[in-house]
């Protein structure tokens, strides 16, 4: 991942923004989502080109249509609120969004039972930002025993709450427990699944957590570079603006990862780490496909080669206790009658 790639992403994003402005179509859902997330990404990439684009994106999102949208339904302010935190040169309209959001949030109107839990936390994060307060919520509490069975959406909830804690990877966060082994396992899983968007989000999480290991970080840099090569295709070209609309997210995440690593970015593919990742990735496929024997045998191989994996031991203990309970049921069921 060369420095120039970030610039290319910004250029394609700027071209897409031009097309959206020409079509006067910022309120189309896919465009609205793109512009909102591009505001966050450009704020985090943070170089001169990114900040100039951030200003243009802010003008497009917080445009004349804003007042009409809010008159239709004041709660629509929720859609604008996250972006309002990342506009580097806020206008009076941006400030109006922040004020209206704070008013609705204080009244309890930004939360909803049908939201995923992390979306409600996102509302708290935006409100804390609006007030200039700090925000911290530990999303990793209680995942030790459920780690192998997390769904993709669970993992997104972890990465996003960490993003709220860390200003999208800009600040290094200390958690009460050691979450790094868990992140490493989830990275191995995303890598094995070829889930580049989740992989890149997790890499940002690891890089912005206290205690991150330099050897792991160098390996992660190599994963990010490989992910970007896949996203750009064999000729290294970014997708044109109309396709970029559907593919920008992992590209932005890659650029944020690159910004998070800064001058420390130094890809190195460590063979032992790669081998361990492959074993863990395979294990997690086995357990999600409910192949109990394959999972246990694969973990036995891992123990033999690398020792016990601290991030998987609690879940393994739980699973073995359930095996023992099932075994007990069976031995009782088949015991001879007295």
């Amino acid at each position, binding site marked *: 991942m060369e420095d120039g790639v970030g610039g290319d992403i910004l250029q394609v994003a700027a071209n897409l923004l031009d097309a959206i402005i020409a079509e006067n179509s910022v309120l189309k859902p896919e465009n609205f*989502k793109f512009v909102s997330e591009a505001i966050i990404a450009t704020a985090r990439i943070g170089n001169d080109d990114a900040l100039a684009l951030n200003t243009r994106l802010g003008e497009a999102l917080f445009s004349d249509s804003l007042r009409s949208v809010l008159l239709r339904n004041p709660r629509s302010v929720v859609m604008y609120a996250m972006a309002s935190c990342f506009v580097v040169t806020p206008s009076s309209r941006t400030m109006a969004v922040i004020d209206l959001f704070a008013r609705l949030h204080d009244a309890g109107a930004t939360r*909803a039972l*049908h*939201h*995923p*839990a992390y*979306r409600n936390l996102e509302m708290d994060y935006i409100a804390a930002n609006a007030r200039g307060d700090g925000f911290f919520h530990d999303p990793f509490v209680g995942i030790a025993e459920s780690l192998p*069975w997390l*769904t*993709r*959406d*669970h993992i*997104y*909830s972890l990465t*996003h709450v960490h993003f709220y804690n860390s200003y999208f990877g800009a600040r290094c966060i200390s958690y009460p427990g050691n979450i790094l082994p868990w992140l490493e396992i989830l990275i191995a899983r995303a890598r094995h699944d070829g889930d580049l968007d989740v992989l890149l989000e997790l890499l940002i999480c690891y890089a912005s957590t206290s205690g991150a290991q330099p050897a792991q970080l160098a390996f992660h840099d190599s994963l990010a570079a490989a992910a970007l090569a896949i996203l750009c295709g064999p000729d290294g070209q970014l997708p044109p603006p109309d396709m970029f609309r559907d593919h920008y997210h992992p590209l932005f995440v890659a650029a944020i990862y690159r910004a998070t690593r800064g001058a420390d970015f130094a890809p190195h593919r460590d063979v032992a780490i790669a081998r361990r990742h492959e074993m863990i990735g395979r294990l997690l496929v086995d357990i*999600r*496909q*409910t*192949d*109990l*024997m*394959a*999972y*246990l*045998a694969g*973990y*036995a*191989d891992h*123990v033999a080669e690398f020792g016990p994996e601290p991030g998987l031991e609690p879940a*393994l*203990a739980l699973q*073995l*206790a359930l*095996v*023992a309970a*099932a*075994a*007990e049921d*069976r*031995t009782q069921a088949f015991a001879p009658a007295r």
Partner: protein
Amino acid sequence: MSDYVERNQKAMSLIVSRGLFAKEFNMQQLVELSREVSALGSPGDLVSWTLISHDYVYTGRAADKIDTIAHR
């Protein structure tokens, strides 16, 4: 020794090494238990389904997929 037998022995050894081996529970029963677990398939994740909503902005693709399964 076949891969299958070797794999099962490894799994059994792991259980025994953790001291959770139920009395009178043998490898044959463990294999049967494993087959039973696999035969149930993956019923999906009910916890995830409760997290899905129409304004699920950031992971729309995954939400669509799970929604499709839920309404199948």
